[in-house]
């Protein structure tokens, strides 16, 4: 079941001599439970792809479907409801609120969506426990390590019934062990049925994905074949 589909998506900024064609016809499909990494040099259109997939920007042409529903046919309020309930974002710099505990940060999107505080907290605690952060729930962001903060940000992005996780360089500022912990958590979210798109220029980060898509000059230029871990443990010819 495809959670996110991009059909021939084009995005042009400006016009005339200042025109920039950020995306030139991108096709991409991400199934529920799958993690796709998008790699490419700066200027290849990675971040534009993510903002369009998350309905933060509209494509110039082409179609985006989230959970089968075309964004083009949605009203402004339908789109913002989709962003509150279905899509979660993770950025490099965490964006946690300093005055709230981890559990309160995670519950916040639900409360903003009108869920009663107690119910929202319960859902927040549930996802923190599911993702192995139950013992950090009552800590404030400045009492957490960088890696823990980013894991809380991922918990917040998938709280409630969010089924599409969009991440921009989620472990960019972290060391290798913390980066691993963050990516294990994205995997745990995918195991719960979340579809994840991770944009990165870091091959180690991308290597956690089921599929790596390479973007170049606003087009998908290439992608990896499915992985076969057994082939590494058997001696070569």
């Amino acid at each position, binding site marked *: 079941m495809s959670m996110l589909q991009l059909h021939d998506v084009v995005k042009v900024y400006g016009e005339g001599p200042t025109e920039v064609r950020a995306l030139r016809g991108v096709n991409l499909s991400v199934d529920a439970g799958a993690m796709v990494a998008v790699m490419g040099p700066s200027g290849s259109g990675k971040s534009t792809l993510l903002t369009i997939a998350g309905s933060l920007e509209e494509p110039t042409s082409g179609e985006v479907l989230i959970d089968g529903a075309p964004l083009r046919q949605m009203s402004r309020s339908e789109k913002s409801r989709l962003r509150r309930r279905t899509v979660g974002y993770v950025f490099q710099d965490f964006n946690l609120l300093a005055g709230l505990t981890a559990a309160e940060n995670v519950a916040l999107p639900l409360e903003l969506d009108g869920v009663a505080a107690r119910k929202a907290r319960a859902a927040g605690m549930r996802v923190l426990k599911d993702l192995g952060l139950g013992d950090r729930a009552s800590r404030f962001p400045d009492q957490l390590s960088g890696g823990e903060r980013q894991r809380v940000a991922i918990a917040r992005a998938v709280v409630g019934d969010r089924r599409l996780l969009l991440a921009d360089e989620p472990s960019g500022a972290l060391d290798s062990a913390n980066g691993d912990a963050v990516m294990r958590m994205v995997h745990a979210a995918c195991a719960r049925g979340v579809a994840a798109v991770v944009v990165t220029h870091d091959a180690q980060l991308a290597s956690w994905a089921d599929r790596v898509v390479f973007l170049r000059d606003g087009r998908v230029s290439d992608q*990896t074949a499915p992985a076969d871990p057994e082939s590494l*443990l058997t001696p070569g010819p």
Partner: protein
Amino acid sequence: MSVRHALLALLSEGPKYGLQLREEFEARTGEVWPLNVGQVYTTLQRLERDGLVESDGSADEGPQKGFRITAAGEEELAGWLRTPPDLSSPPRDELVIKVLVAARLPGVDVHEVIQTHRRYLVQLMQQWTRIKEEDDGHDVALGLAVDAELFRLDSVTRWLDAADGRLLRAAAEGPPPPAATPPLPPLRRRTGMRHSARHG
């Protein structure tokens, strides 16, 4: 990977049987380097010949033969641990040569060549990461061995990214004057020197 020194390290913990040595070697290297039993015994024979290990002469050759490290073996091991591996001379890198050739060959899209290698490397990295992921982070030896492989492959992908960018910038700036073209002959000379040094 020095099987010889890895076996000395295992024996420095106490006397062990041949079969035990093989099992422990594989466990400690996260089973990333499979070792055949013949390799273990050949290496043990050489270590014994060089006076670095002793065996209990009573038992026959086989998995039940016991070995212990000698004082000379301890000394050899201590020296090896602190001797830097040879990283000073650049390896004769086949990938670098392929990209250099592709960049100059008419009718070849060097960026397509680079992407082919980049995709292959990322696929390899996906396979290593899958192994790390399946272990759940408990096997420290496996984590270390897999990280070493991932960092090595990562450095190659970074070089490909840098090469890609450098070639794009060079193309945008137009063809360089002939004198500025990096000459190939020194490269041949250097690899030739290494080649002959290795066999000389």
